Each structure stands twice: as C-alpha cells, then as structure tokens.
C-alpha cells in the first residue's frame, strides 16, 4: 500500500491505457458536433483508431512498471498486461471494421466510437483491478456501453429489442454478481482479492464463501454466455450491429474471463471444480446442438460462441499451473478468429443487414474468392484444424484438463468438437459447392476492412504455427499470479 496521501507518478502509469482511452473517447465526443457532417464519420473513426493504437503503446510502456496502484485498487502484472493488450487490439480491429459499416448502415459515428472506447476502458480495468468493488464498477462500464451498442441499428426494431433483452438479463446477472460480492465481504471482511485469498487459504472456509463464489459465478456466467445462462445470446447477436457483435463476443468476454481467473485462482475459490465442470459440459453441448439447426449466420456464430465459452471453461476446471495459460491462450486465439469472422459477416451483410442467412453465402467462393478464403480460415480455426490458432487453443485446454484427470470432461469436449465441425463445414460447403439462388452483390473490401482482416488472419495463423511465445508468456504470468 502506498504510504503517501497522494498517488505517485508511477501509479498513473499503471492506469495509463485507461487514461489514454478515456481521453480519446472524450475527444471523439467533443469533436463530433464540431466537424463537418460529411467528413465526420471518417475523421472520428481515425481519432478513435489513433486512441486505441495509443492505448496499445501505453500498455507496452506500462508493462515495464508492474506493481500495485491507488491503495491496492489496481495491480499491473504480466497477467493484466496480456488482457490489456488483447482488449486494446480487439478495439482497434473493431474500429477498423466499423468505418465502412457505419456509412453503409447510416449510423452516427460520434457516440458509437465514444462508447467503444469507454467500454474498452471498463474491460481493461477489469483485468487489472484487484478489488471486487472496482471490478464491479468496471464490469458495469463495459456492460452498459455494450447494451447501448447492441441497440445502435435504430432503423431495425430487432436491434432495440436486442438491447432491451441484453439489458434486462444483464442487470439481473449484475445483481447476482453483486450479492456474491456482498457474501464474500461477509465471509472474509474484505473485498480485496489478496485479503480474500489469505483468508481462504488459511484453512477454515466459511460457508458464506461458497455461496458467494456460486453467486459471482452465476453473474459472470451470464456475461460470458455460458450455459445455462446463455438464453440471451442468439437474439442479442442477431439484433446487434455485426461489428459490435464481433466486439462484444470477444473483448468483454476476455475481460470477464480475466476476472474469473482472478477470482477462481488468485483468490483460491473453494468448491469451484464441480460448478465449472457442469457449466462447461452444458455450454459445449447446448451451444453445439443449438448451432446445428440455425439458418442465420449470426445466430449460428452466437451458438458457436456459447460452445467456445464451454471449451474455455474446461481450462478453468484444470489445475492452475496448466489451466491459466491454456485459458489465456484460448481467449487470444478465439478473439482473433471471432473478430475476423464477424468482420467478414458485417461486410457481407450490406445495408440493413439483409444478407445474413446461410443461403446468402452460397457461391461466395466464386463471387468473392478472397473474402471467402479469409472466412474459411476463420471457420477452420473455429473447428480447430492444425496450423490455425484454434487447434493449439483446444489442444492446450484439453491437455491441461487431462493433467488434472478430468477425463470425462475431455471426452465431452472432443465429442462436441466433432459436432461443431459439422456446422462450420456447412458454411464452407455453402460458399464453395452451391450455386447462388440470388446474386447478392459483394462490394469490394474497403481499406479498413482489409487491414483488419490481414491482422486477424495473421494472428490466427501465427498462433497456429508458433504458439510457443504466447504460451510461454501466459505460463510466466500464471506463475506470477499464483505467487501473490
């Protein structure tokens, strides 16, 4: 704990990415009315992109100054830097994919980019906060901005309803999370993760702590769309603007998983195993079975994201030494492939998001070979084919689970991967083997989208060929996390 009454300069460095993102967010909001209407969209997009790039640099700079800040509210370590990097990169890529989308859908840019940047502040903070109350506030910042972003297609009724549904279930989940925090406070007398961990490691575990963990898990389970708390996902993903879906299916999820990792492992939560076991098995099964019958690509990817949350939770059931790095690797590779897939979907959907059914994708391989090839890479990665990031992600998760003797869970996971392969392949078959019934026009990819796709394809392939570096970093940060 810092002794002085005012924070030191180095403590501001420990929140630098958040500061940068908020400043740029406010700049976007202030400049919005000042800039000429026609040039508005692109200029604001550029500012937002600049902000997220500056935040990436701030994260890299910050990584040299690890340690606690602001009276033990935040703690910068290798773990938080990893998630900061992930969130800010996803933000940058989503902004790149939004440029064109905003013009096609005629969405006002100021509030949109502002909310994306503010939401990113919340997500970044979630990974570095080590105090349940701050985690809660950061979680709310990220949730409220995504509720609004989900309702941005104001011309479509389905969008504001998606927003409403997301909002109602999200605040319901928030209340559960908060009750868990209250019980944890009652059990240990503190909301600081390090104090909680000391109390829980001291042997005598109060009964309230079990209830607290369970309730917090329910609340966070809602936010990552893990079954049985996943009912909102397909409807919300269908209604929300596609780039936003790419955003909210990766960045907030990664942040919530960071929180879960901190609560489950750093605080050494009791009774976590069976809780996670059941949720992981249910999410994988319900997600994959639900995806089998979908005709709408966005809904299909929504169910697929439920299934992927399940695979990720398998890592949580494993021992900390293997589980944390596996989970971190999985979040990274999932972020790359999912943002990429939604970037293609949002470009292809065109005005009013008309072309989102599976049927519309028929013949895409002939009409737009490059776009189809990129989507194929992402889908293969989602299946878990070698030389893509998805393969090593699944491999590490399952081997971590095997080390922890969770054979049953691994069998369920592998069976589910086989089911999953079917519906991803269905899209690929549609694109290459079918003749289009109606020629849906595919506009040429604009420069922003091209950059975003290049980045995500590169990341997916890189994680699939040279996973060592990222995994090594993840193991190091896990070791650091456990030592605290």
């Amino acid at each position, binding site marked *: 704990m810092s002794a002085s*009454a005012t924070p030191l300069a180095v403590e501001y460095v420990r*929140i630098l990415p958040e500061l940068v993102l*908020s400043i740029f967010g406010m700049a976007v*909001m202030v400049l919005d009315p000042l800039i000429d209407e026609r040039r508005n969209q692109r200029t604001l997009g550029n500012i937002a992109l600049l902000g997220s790039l500056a935040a990436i640099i701030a994260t890299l700079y910050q990584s040299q100054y690890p340690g606690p*800040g*602001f*009276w033990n*509210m*935040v703690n910068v370590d290798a773990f938080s830097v990893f998630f900061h990097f992930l969130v800010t990169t996803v933000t940058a890529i989503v902004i790149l994919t939004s440029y064109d989308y905003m013009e096609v859908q005629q*969405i*006002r840019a100021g*509030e949109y980019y*502002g*909310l994306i940047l*503010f*939401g990113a*502040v*919340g997500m970044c*903070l979630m990974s570095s906060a080590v*105090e349940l*109350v*701050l985690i809660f*506030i*950061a979680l*709310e*910042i990220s949730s*409220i*901005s995504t*509720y*609004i972003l989900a*309702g*941005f297609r*104001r011309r479509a009724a389905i969008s*504001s309803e998606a*927003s409403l549904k997301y909002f109602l279930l999200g605040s319901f989940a928030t209340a559960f999370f908060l009750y868990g925090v209250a*019980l944890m406070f009652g*059990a240990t007398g503190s909301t600081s993760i390090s104090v909680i961990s000391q109390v829980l490691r001291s042997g005598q575990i*109060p*009964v*309230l702590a079990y*209830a607290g963990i369970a309730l917090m898990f329910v609340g966070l389970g809602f936010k990552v769309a893990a079954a049985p708390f996943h009912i909102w996902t397909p409807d919300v993903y269908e209604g929300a603007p596609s780039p936003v879906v790419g955003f909210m299916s990766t960045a907030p999820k990664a942040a919530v998983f960071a929180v879960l990792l901190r609560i489950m492992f750093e605080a050494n939560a009791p009774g976590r195993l069976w809780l996670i076991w059941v949720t992981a098995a249910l999410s994988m099964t319900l997600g994959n079975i639900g995806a089998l019958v979908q005709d709408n690509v966005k809904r299909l990817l929504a169910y697929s994201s439920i299934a992927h949350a399940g695979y990720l939770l398998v890592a949580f059931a494993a021992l900390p030494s293997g589980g944390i790095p596996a989970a971190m690797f999985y979040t990274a590779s999932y972020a790359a492939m999912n943002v990429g897939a939604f970037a293609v979907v949002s470009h292809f959907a065109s005005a009013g998001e008309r072309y989102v059914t599976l049927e519309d994708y028929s013949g895409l391989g002939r009409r737009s070979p490059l776009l189809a090839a990129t989507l194929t890479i992402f889908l293969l990665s989602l299946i878990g084919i070698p030389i893509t990031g998805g393969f090593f992600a699944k491999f590490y998760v399952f081997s971590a689970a095997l080390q922890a003797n969770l054979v049953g869970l691994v069998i369920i996971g592998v069976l589910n991967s086989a089911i999953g392969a079917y519906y991803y392949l269905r899209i690929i078959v549609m694109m290459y083997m079918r003749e289009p019934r109606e020629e849906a026009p595919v506009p040429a990819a604009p420069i922003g989208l091209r950059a975003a796709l290049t980045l995500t394809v590169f990341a997916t392939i890189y994680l699939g060929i040279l996973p060592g570096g990222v995994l090594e970093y993840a193991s190091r940060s896990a070791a650091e996390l456990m030592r605290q």
Partner: protein
Amino acid sequence: MQPVATTFFFYFLSAVTVISGIAVITRRNPVHSALALIVALLGQAGLYLMLYAPFVAGVQIILYAGGIMVLFLFVIMLVNIERAQKEEQFNKQWIVGIVAALALGVLFVLVYMKGKGLFPQTVAQLPEGENTQGIAMLLYRDYMFAFEIASLLLLVAIIGAVVMAKKRI
C-alpha cells in the same frame, strides 16, 4: 445513544419492507408498484439507521427514493399504462418463477442459519458521530480510484440514455 425498543422497530420495519416489496411485484398498475417500492426503500432506510449507518440512510432517501424513483415515475407517465393494466400481468412461466425464487430464498435462509455461529448475536454499536467523517475518509482516499471511475460510468450512462431516447440518430 442507546437504542430503544429495537426488537419492535426491527419487526415493524421489516414487515413494512417485505409487504411493500411483495406489493411491487403483485400490483397491476405500475404507478402503484413504484409507490410501493418507495415505501420499501424508506423502510430500508429505517433499517440502515438501526445498523448505525445514518449517512447511508440519508442517501437512500434522497438519492434512491427521491431521485431514481422519480425517474421511474417520469417514464411511467411517458408511456401508455392504460393498456398495460388491461393485459395479463403474469407470464406463462409463473410456476417455474415461483419455484425458482422460493428455492433461492430457502437457500439463503439455510446458508444464514447454518452460518449462524459466524454472526454476532447482537448488532455492534458503531460510533454514530464519526460515521460521515469515516465514510468520507474511505471514499476520498482508499476508494478514491473507484470513486473517479464511477464518474466514467455515469458519463457512459448519460451518453447511452441520450442515444437510446433520441428520436433519430
């Protein structure tokens, strides 16, 4: 100050809170629900006083009952509630809902009963005079960062409310 007749006041205030809490979810007219919720909030403010939290009690009345609930009433005025009143007020899954909520309630009571030994038999008397002062010290020093971040949350909420309520964007 030594408390007087705490047992009576506890049961009285809990009865007020629970009954109006049930009224919130059973009344047909949303305005009645909102008024019942205000009564529940006031009852709860009384309970805060009994737990030696006078500042929280004050904020509860001013901010919650006075601020947030007025917002609710405004929105109820904006939308047409005549129609809502004529419609069925419970949905089809009410049996499932009641079972789930009862199970949850029983679970909580069990947890508290099982952990009874953990809790002190009486409420400890906290110093009242320094309550506000102590809260200020915590809020503006130890929790200063959370306090500042809460302002960002409010900014996001303002933007969000404007975006959603605007007729066209």
